[in-house]
């Protein structure tokens, strides 16, 4: 397949701003810090009719690069950014913020730009070097049956992910354009953000980098660290997730009564992070609701959790396991004024991952991961388990 690199206007703009900033910062302060990660992987999955069947079951090589470009502009003004590319050759600007720390000598930091959304506590686990697995937790990866293109649900289509524009519940690494205030007071950490998009429709994957909704997303997180090594957090988010205007592929506009602000996403989450000696545990759970009263007579709800544990057996060798599950509510659809019998708007799914990691050196990690997927509610569970190996270097 001959595929051309896709470089968007947004990418070019970001690169230009970065170059300008780098040039100025380097010349003036010499305080630029550049780091990154590069990884190469080989994955093979079963060729089932499922979104988890990677590349239609063909064994596949892939790569990913993360570049972190940061600068200390003054004692309390920082520029932080991270850029991500993979075999799609599309440059994603994940993080791109100007941060002011210790505002007015208070325990308050603020930042603006493309910021990390303070929902959950994924932290550095989003990067291959610190993620013992090949993917993020299930709730951040699963593409639901709700399509962005026409806001229809396609729960009867087992290959719904082929449309590639399905909403996720939590949008992968969760970055969005906005403003964030955060800090810590004693054992309590807090964060509050206003963003263009919402958890399921961040600007990271939007075509032009800006969301098409006139609403603003509001996200907050509060966490407490009662003892070193244990952090318990709670997150909340609310905001519109649909575009202001829309034309279906057939050219039908929204109904005249449509108001995207009445379609809100509400999400509550809890997370726990515990580690001691050579063991670490991370768990997160969330309840997500999308308002769709007009279209479906109810909201589209989902509950999910993920729990992962890691243990370093001896220096260099680490084993890990993660289990995650997503459950969706039942609803009746209004078809020409007749309510259908209740059915789930997406299939409940479960994933179990096991991983073995070997640190070749401080900079290089090798890992092997087996992923076992289970989809409920279909006549038979799709064959979509996978195995992959990945090497990661940091620099």
């Amino acid at each position, binding site marked *: 397949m001959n595929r051309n690199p896709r470089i968007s206007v947004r990418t070019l703009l970001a690169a230009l701003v970065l170059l300008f900033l780098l040039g100025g910062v380097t010349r003036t302060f010499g*305080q630029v*810090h550049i*780091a990154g990660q590069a990884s190469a992987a080989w994955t093979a999955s079963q060729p089932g009719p499922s979104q988890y069947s990677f590349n239609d079951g063909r064994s596949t090589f892939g790569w990913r690069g993360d570049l*972190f470009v*940061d600068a*200390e502009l003054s*004692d*309390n003004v*920082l520029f*932080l950014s*991270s850029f991500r590319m993979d075999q799609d050759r599309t440059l994603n600007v994940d*993080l791109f913020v100007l*941060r002011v*720390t*210790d505002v007015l000598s208070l*325990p308050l*930091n603020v930042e603006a730009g493309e910021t*990390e959304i303070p929902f959950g506590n994924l*932290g*550095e686990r989003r990067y291959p070097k610190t993620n013992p697995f090949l993917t993020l937790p299930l709730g951040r990866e699963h593409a639901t049956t709700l399509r962005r293109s026409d806001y229809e649900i396609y729960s009867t289509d087992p290959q719904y992910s082929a449309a590639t524009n399905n909403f996720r519940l939590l949008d992968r690494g969760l970055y969005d354009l906005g403003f964030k205030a*955060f*800090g*810590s007071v004693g054992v309590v*950490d807090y964060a509050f953000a206003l963003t263009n998009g919402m958890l399921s429709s961040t600007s990271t994957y939007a075509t032009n980098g800006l969301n098409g909704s006139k609403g603003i997303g509001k996200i907050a997180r509060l*966490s407490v660290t009662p*003892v*070193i*090594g244990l*952090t318990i957090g709670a997150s909340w988010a609310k905001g519109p997730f649909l575009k202001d205007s829309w034309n279906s592929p057939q050219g039908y506009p929204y109904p005249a009564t449509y108001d995207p602000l009445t379609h809100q996403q509400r999400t509550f989450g809890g997370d726990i992070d515990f*580690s*001691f*000696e*050579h063991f*670490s545990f991370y768990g997160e759970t969330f309840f997500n609701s999308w308002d769709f009263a007009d279209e479906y007579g109810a909201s589209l709800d989902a509950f999910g959790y993920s729990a992962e544990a890691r243990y*370093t057996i*001896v*220096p*260099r060798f680490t084993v890990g396991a993660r289990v995650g599950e997503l459950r969706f509510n039942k609803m009746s659809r209004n078809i020409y004024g007749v309510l259908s019998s209740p059915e789930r708007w997406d299939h409940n799914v479960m994933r179990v991952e096991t991983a073995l990691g070997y*640190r070749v*050196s*401080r900079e290089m990690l090798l890992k092997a991961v087996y992923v076992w997927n289970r989809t409920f509610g279909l006549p038979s569970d799709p064959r979509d388990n996978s195995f992959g190996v990945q090497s990661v270097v*940091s620099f």
Partner: protein
Amino acid sequence: MRHASFRRVYAYCICSLILLAAACHIVRAQQNGATGTIQGSILAPAEDISGSFMREKKLLHYDSHNHAGEPIQSYRLAELAVVYIEDAGVRAPTPPPAEHPRLNQFQMVFRPLVLAVSAGTTVDFPNNDNLFHNVFSYSQPKEFDLGRYPRGDMRSVRFDKPGTVNVFCDIHSYMYATILVFDHPYFAVCDDDDNFAIPAVPEGHYTLAYWYGRKKMESKRITVKAGETTTVMFQ
């Protein structure tokens, strides 16, 4: 064929005898008190390594307490520099010190940045920060991974093999330190006036090296004479 083999054995014997004689000479010189002292100064001002640590600490993307925090105390030269003989020529193991040397984790950096110990020494790694560190090393002389432990706790590691041990924190990637493990006692750190002294060095010709921060900076050929002081300046 037989002659060639005989010559090789003969050459080995001669070389071994020479080396043995040299070693005996050094040991005897030491036993007889035929030793001298190496002393000197490091004239280069201590680079403010703490500043670069401070910057990297602030630039951690996912530190939930992401603000500058307390300024990191500047390193004294004694925490940064070690002077040592590279080619002592003979193993002269010394008994480990009664009190374990410490590599502290404090203000999210290691202190000192360079620690010199004799083989057989046990080093303590106390955590004095109000967060976790995960000290580890994959260096050939000693591999270890201490895991995570809280403030006030300590783990210890014994270093039996000579060599350079690079120490890192698995959580805070910018944290590093070096432990230089020697199989002889001829090494020293600077005092507060940037001077160093290595006493009781057997007379002979040596290479004196100067380690600063993360790497060896300079080495000089020197001659130590019995009862005399050899002065060396590192710039």
